[in-house]
């Protein structure tokens, strides 16, 4: 059994508490330590706001090769930085060598098709 965590600035994450997810407001200083604790503490999915993820990219990178936890970027209250979409593009680039699928799509505020 695993839990689900949401990390980010308080304004972006407090709503998720109502769904029954564990909410952890964090800044750039305490985020790496918190992420480590969550990853080892039985959290299977960790949602993290794009702004916070950008600050602790190396710490997130460490869990990329592991099956769990899945660290997923979500847009915060300040809007969408496009980092999540960029992440998907990066995986395509890693797998294929160049982004042939979504190369023409902008990484910014993409509306669903």
């Amino acid at each position, binding site marked *: 059994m695993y839990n689900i965590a949401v990390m980010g600035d308080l304004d972006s994450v407090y709503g998720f508490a109502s769904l029954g997810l564990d909410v952890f407001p964090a800044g750039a200083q305490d985020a790496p330590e918190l992420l480590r604790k969550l990853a080892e503490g039985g959290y299977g999915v960790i949602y993290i706001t794009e702004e916070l993820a950008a600050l602790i990219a190396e710490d997130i990178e460490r869990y990329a090769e592991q099956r769990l936890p899945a660290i997923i970027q979500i847009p915060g209250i300040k809007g*969408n930085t496009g980092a*999540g979409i960029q992440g998907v593009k990066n995986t395509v680039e890693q797998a294929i060598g160049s982004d042939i699928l979504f190369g023409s799509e902008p990484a910014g505020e993409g509306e669903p098709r």
Partner: protein
Amino acid sequence: MASTQIKPTRMELTRLKKKLGTAVKGHKLLKDKRDELMREFMDLVRENMELRKKVEAGIRAANVNFVVARADMSEEILQAALMVPKQSVELKASSRNVMSVDVPVFDYTTRTPDANDIYSYGFAFTSSELDGAVKSLSDVFPDMLKLAEVEKSCQLMASEIEKTRRRVNALEHVIIPETREGIRYITMKLDENERSTQTRLMKVKDMMLEQAHHYSEK
């Protein structure tokens, strides 16, 4: 040059031939693995992109709702309303094997089956916008979980594809040609040795005949 280090013996030749056989077989298998992984990855990453767009739009909309809800209520009441959640989510993670890559499969159960348990507050002091905001967030949640599963799978598969591609290339462009070269070198060397032995024997025979009968064989 690698061939200078190869000992031109029959044993080495057998070893190299075996190695070549394994390398060629391995190359074919790895290439098949790469192609199949690539095919699965393509489907999955398209789904990933679609889900991500859907989730990001959903969360953006929910965030807008939350901002509106906050504008209508004091900070304290809002905090108090969401402080003790009624609902909790438990995540079950199993794994699926795609071409030897272990990808996670998530399944969640809520503690209570009642869909209305996302409202962890009495409705007396909170605005109706908050209800809407919480509802909109809860609507996105199944997609968020699906996104987590798909995106993690994509990441794991991408790194596996990268690794497999490197192996395929190393076999195709380094190991197999080098082994072929080694086999060629040994075969040539052995042939050469045989020819030199042959001529030596012929020469010796000539000399022996010359000694015995004092004539040279034509």
